[in-house]
């Protein structure tokens, strides 16, 4: 089959349109560069009535929002999931990994939790503290100016608390806590566990004239039609187009590899157009990979040539290694003092109004690194699953469980809004032998060799998660709550979620000064090829007990500035 070549030579080809790709698109196009954005999924605009799920009622879905098709429920905006037909991945026996992909313009930024935390000074230099893993070649001071710019450009609510490792920023004011959050605050404080307003990227206040202000429907996971929450399409790519940027969007186009010339420099990408299933080539002076940590690693490993026999940028053999996700586990509690609630609209923003950042010192603990606590609850909109096990809580009062007839209506009302959930999200220690690699025996439906994962938690993570459960129970009891579902024990590794399940996977193309032990330099430029950059979470050396998005955005901006500068100096 002949490969169809586009005659345009782009200044930059950006692969992927999530947080990293969106930011690169904005900065590079606004610098006057001609940009191609290649996205594996369709165009998506949450303001398009054809694609909108926000403000729909559960009965508008025949399955009432059940997660049969979309894993986070029928109204979640992500097109994709843990399994995508025609695009499999493999796992080494005895190991586990779950890989969430969102195939659409904006990628996974369309449905994420919008928890937008800066890494702190310690997060870049963990090896100095506990001797484990590696330090980043850069520090907080290198990234701070970009965090500041991201705060102002995109908008994040929160509060300046002067915390040593959870830096202050340019925050919009946070929303007031909901009722269950006041219970959480009370319960946590009783054990001297601090609670602060959460830090999330929804506009509680106007930030510019292009985006609306939050109207508190609590549905950020459905993507916002007035663009009041952050997603890459609505806050970066659309504004860049509006600003007159020369941006060609290639949607439903799955990049196969980065093409290179005889000197080994990148010349562009080849991709498969999902609609006609034909292979195409795009030419570019610079290639910026932003396909997600694992997808970018896959593209590099599949980009084999005489000059790069081990895959592009992989002379170190480090591409795919040091894959790591956040640790995570959850627990719920029934809180009798939250029974018999009067109802009012407390949807609020999508997610928590308060949270607990990591608050302890590891010297007194049997695990390294920390975790933050998220929580949920309240008078939520019913969807599939509402009313299941309607009166199980009767067992706490010695009353019969089950039955039928109109007494069930009273039970529904009595227990509505009386459950609080807690989740710990923590930092794992990056391990060289947790990795993804190409499985040469299998291809996806586009003929591209697929990834095989090899990932095991270590004792560090398992002990951390055990600590999470001890903390949850303590807070729950302080609230007068009854923890539900039994405390997970040693037999289940204390309920630690499967690697990948928190969807914070990072580290596959890690950053470093030594080209033998890292893939990119501190500007996220391949050591091996100077016109290829990576702006997703692949370059993360360690992922902190923070959600990675804000750091992806800050580093992508920093790399984009560097690209513009290097082009000016004719260094690339």
């Amino acid at each position, binding site marked *: 089959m002949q490969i169809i070549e586009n005659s345009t030579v782009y200044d930059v080809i950006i692969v992927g349109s999530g947080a990293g790709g969106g930011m690169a698109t904005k900065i590079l196009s606004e610098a006057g560069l001609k940009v191609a954005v290649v996205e594996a999924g369709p165009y998506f605009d949450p303001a398009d009535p054809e694609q909108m799920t926000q403000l729909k009622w559960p009965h508008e*879905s025949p399955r009432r929002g059940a997660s049969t098709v979309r894993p986070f429920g029928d109204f979640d905006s992500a097109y994709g999931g843990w399994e995508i037909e025609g695009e499999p991945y493999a796992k080494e026996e005895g190991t586990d990994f779950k890989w969430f992909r969102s195939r659409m313009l904006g990628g996974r930024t369309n449905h994420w939790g919008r928890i937008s935390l800066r890494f702190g000074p310690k997060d870049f230099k963990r090896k100095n503290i506990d001797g484990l893993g590696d330090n980043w070649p850069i520090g907080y001071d290198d990234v701070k100016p970009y965090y500041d710019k991201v705060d102002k450009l995109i908008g994040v609510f929160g509060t300046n608390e002067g915390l040593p490792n959870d830096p202050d920023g340019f925050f919009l004011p946070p929303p007031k806590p909901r009722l269950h959050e*006041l219970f959480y605050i009370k319960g946590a404080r009783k054990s001297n566990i601090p609670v602060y307003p959460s830090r999330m990227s929804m506009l509680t*206040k106007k930030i510019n004239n292009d985006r609306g202000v939050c109207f508190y429907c609590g549905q950020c996971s459905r993507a916002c039609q007035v663009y009041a929450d952050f997603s890459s399409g609505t806050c970066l790519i659309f504004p860049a187009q509006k600003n007159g940027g020369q941006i060609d969007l290639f949607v439903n186009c799955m990049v196969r590899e980065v093409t290179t010339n005889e000197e080994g420099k990148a010349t562009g990408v080849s991709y498969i157009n999902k609609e006609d299933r034909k292979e195409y080539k795009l030419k570019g002076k610079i290639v910026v990979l932003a396909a997600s940590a694992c997808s970018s690693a896959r593209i590099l490993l599949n980009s084999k040539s005489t000059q790069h026999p081990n895959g592009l940028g992989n002379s170190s053999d480090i591409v795919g290694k040091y894959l790591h996700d956040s640790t995570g586990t959850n627990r719920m509690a029934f809180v009798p003092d939250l029974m018999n609630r009067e109802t009012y609209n407390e949807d609020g923003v999508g997610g928590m109004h308060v949270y607990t950042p990591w608050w302890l010192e590891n010297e007194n603990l049997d695990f390294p690194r920390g975790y933050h606590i998220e929580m949920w609850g309240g008078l939520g909109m019913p969807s599939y699953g509402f*009313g299941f096990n309607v009166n199980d809580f009767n067992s706490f009062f010695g009353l019969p469980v089950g039955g039928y007839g109109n007494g069930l209506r009273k039970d529904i009302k009595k227990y509505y809004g009386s459950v609080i959930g807690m989740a710990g999200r923590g930092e794992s220690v990056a391990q060289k032998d947790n990795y993804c690699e190409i499985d040469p025996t299998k291809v996806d439906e586009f003929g591209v060799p697929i990834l095989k994962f090899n990932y095991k938690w270590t004792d560090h993570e398992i002990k951390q998660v055990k600590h999470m459960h001890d903390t949850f129970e303590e807070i729950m009891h302080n609230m007068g709550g009854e923890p539900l579902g039994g405390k997970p024990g040693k037999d289940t590794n204390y309920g630690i979620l499967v690697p990948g399940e928190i969807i914070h996977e990072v580290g596959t193309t890690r950053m470093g000064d030594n080209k033998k032990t890292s893939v990119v330099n501190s500007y996220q430029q391949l050591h091996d090829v100077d016109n290829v950059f990576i702006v997703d979470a692949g370059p993360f050396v360690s992922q902190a007990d923070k959600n990675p998005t804000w750091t992806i955005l800050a580093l992508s901006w920093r790399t984009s500035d560097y690209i513009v500068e290097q082009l000016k100096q004719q260094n690339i």
Partner: protein
Amino acid sequence: MDRRKSLKSILLGGVASGLAVHGCNPKPEATTEETLAVNKYAYGRTPKEQEAIEELLSETFFKEHEMTTIAALCNLILPAEDGLKGALDAEVPDFIEFMVKDIPEYQPTLRGGLMWLDHKCNTEFDVEFIAASEDQQKSVLDTIAFPDITIPEAERPLEIQFFSLMRNLTLTGYYTTKIGIDELGYKGNSPNVWDGVPEHVLQQHGVSYDEDWLAKCVDQSKRGTLAEWDENGNLLT
């Protein structure tokens, strides 16, 4: 006649004749209903998802007798009485028919449980479940409606799992409709301005806001004012 209406008429009786009169109405009502059925589930589906939904809707899993039995069960779980709407008003049997196709794992439990019900009623009263008197029906349900939740669900007898699933689906099916949501009193899913828990609700639950905390929160009267900060990140507006 629409299957849903027929079910309701079988159960509630009397409505059937009304429908027959309706059927003579010369208005092209059927066309309108068909259009509605196609548009009913427009909620941001991809073309592939939309096709899958239409395919499920076009299939029939439960046989007529099973649907009638399901409707009878739904009506016992959430009857319309005391001015309240019931599970049949909220078209719960249709929802269950959809879910059993959407989540095929439910099929053996539901189909097997329905058989169990008829077998039990045949054994005890020499009639199928739907033909039994309400007292007889309830006497059967009383043996399966109260699970021992100290035993893991999968280890409970099938008929108990069956009824628990029926109850779950009936309640979820009811409370996710407009009727159920109104009854529950859920007030959200509409644009509004969140400005904290009402004072009397705080008092009911014995909690209060910290003044220090509130001072940091958004002043909703200024939500439309463009955010500006000083160089230290202090919000000026």
